[in-house]
């Protein structure tokens, strides 16, 4: 059975009660538009300041039902396996007891399984294809699609797409409050759910990796989504206003700068995740930069990685999006297989992150 919103929160409580030593619950400061609080579950035996951390997000898009379940499942697996000194197996993807220990004792994993509970509740009860949060419609706007903001267009990264991209770049974002899918919101980080993710990053500078789990694909995406990657011209970057008229066009010789070492790290860790997910039952997720057919703006993964460019004091956060499975709401028997793929991928990230990222 898929978890409903109440069950996600009570699952976090139950895991903390059962395993109080290696867990901690934190509550971000911002309530959702419908008044819900959300929580993060930290899994790790070490103090927050002692070891690097990974932030795992789920449920940003309401209609994508599997990611929150996947994150609760992985947290439960890690805690149970660590407690009983066993390994973990997902199909043909296996992890030894020593590897489970390595993850739980050398990292903190911040599980934020359901960033957008208002949207999830609406999707699970009322509207199959609801993607956004439940921000009330602006005054004068009528119709059900005028409710809500796409949280994955609301982060403070090239948020103002009409000013920051070429007009013919076809950015996959909208400034129309009644767009049913990709409305960016009235301002960058206007939404409480967005600000809760920002709070998690601000509050935990030990976070060096972030994975935002979505569906469907399957695909494993790394930075950037705003333009095609390039590693030769550092001044061609999201902070350069001279590019505002040309940003986002494909194959124009102007791309978003990513240092070569960072790109190598991004790809290598993505491939580790892809290999582990693929070993579960043979599904090839594939690895690619997030710039697909169109550029995106205001996404969580680009925002998280951009922070250290904007603020040199900020931690560099290697950021990924997993697009799991091939549909939003498969039969739960299929969702279980997808959850295993996501679990294996995230464990592979944790196990390989220190070596691959070393020096980057």
């Amino acid at each position: 059975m898929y978890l409903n919103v109440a069950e996600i929160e009570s699952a976090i409580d139950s895991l903390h009660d059962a395993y109080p030593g290696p867990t901690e619950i934190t509550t971000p400061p911002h309530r959702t538009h419908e008044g819900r609080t959300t929580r993060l579950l930290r899994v790790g035996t070490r103090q927050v300041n002692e070891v690097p951390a990974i932030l795992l997000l789920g449920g940003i898009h309401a209609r994508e039902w599997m990611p929150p379940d996947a994150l609760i499942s992985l947290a439960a697996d890690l805690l149970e396996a660590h407690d009983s000194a066993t390994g973990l197996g997902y199909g043909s993807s296996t992890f030894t007891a020593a590897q489970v220990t390595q993850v739980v004792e050398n990292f903190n994993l911040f599980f934020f399984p359901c960033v957008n509970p208002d949207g999830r509740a609406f999707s699970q009860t009322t509207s199959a294809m609801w993607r956004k949060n439940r921000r009330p419609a602006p005054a004068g706007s009528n119709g059900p699609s005028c409710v809500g903001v796409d949280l994955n267009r609301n982060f403070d990264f090239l948020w103002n797409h009409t000013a920051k991209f070429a007009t013919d770049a076809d950015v996959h974002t909208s400034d129309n409050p009644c767009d049913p899918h990709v409305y960016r919101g009235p301002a960058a980080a206007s939404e409480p759910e967005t600000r809760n993710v920002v709070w998690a990053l601000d509050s935990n500078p030990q976070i060096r990796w972030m994975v935002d789990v979505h569906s469907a694909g399957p695909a494993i995406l790394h930075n950037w989504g705003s333009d095609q990657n390039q590693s030769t011209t550092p001044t061609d970057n999201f902070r350069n206003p001279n590019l505002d008229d040309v940003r986002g066009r494909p194959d124009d010789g102007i791309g978003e700068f990513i240092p070569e070492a960072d790109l190598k790290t991004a790809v290598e860790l993505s491939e580790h995740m892809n290999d582990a997910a693929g070993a579960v039952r043979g599904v090839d997720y594939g690895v690619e930069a997030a710039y697909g057919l169109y550029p995106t703006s205001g996404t969580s993964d680009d925002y998280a990685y951009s922070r250290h460019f904007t603020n040199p004091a900020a931690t560099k956060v290697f950021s990924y999006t997993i697009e799991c499975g091939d549909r939003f709401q498969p039969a739960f028997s299929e969702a279980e297989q997808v959850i295993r793929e996501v679990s294996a991928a995230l464990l592979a990230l944790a196990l390989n992150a220190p070596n691959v990222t070393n020096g980057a």
Partner: protein
Amino acid sequence: MSEEPDVFRCHVVAENAEALKEFLHETQADVGCRAIARGTRAGVGLDLYFRQDQLDQARAARSAPLVNITEVENVTENWRNRKEEVGGGDRFADRDVVPHGLGRKE
């Protein structure tokens, strides 16, 4: 029960990315989470989501001859069935009931 019109997942394939983008630009279709297209022997394709009226319009679009549209699934009908697989109460309200993950402990 949703009163919204049913939505259909369709797999849309074009000969190349430019043709696919032309179709997407004209129809403004829901591309799912991200517009990630995959190459196959048949061309470049991705899943799109349409209400029936949108699908009719898409099939009549100027750029429609550039693509092949295959209806895969009635998403709304699937959702009606999936709702039966969403927890109805709170399985973990009793703090002694601890969630178990799907991994084999071995």
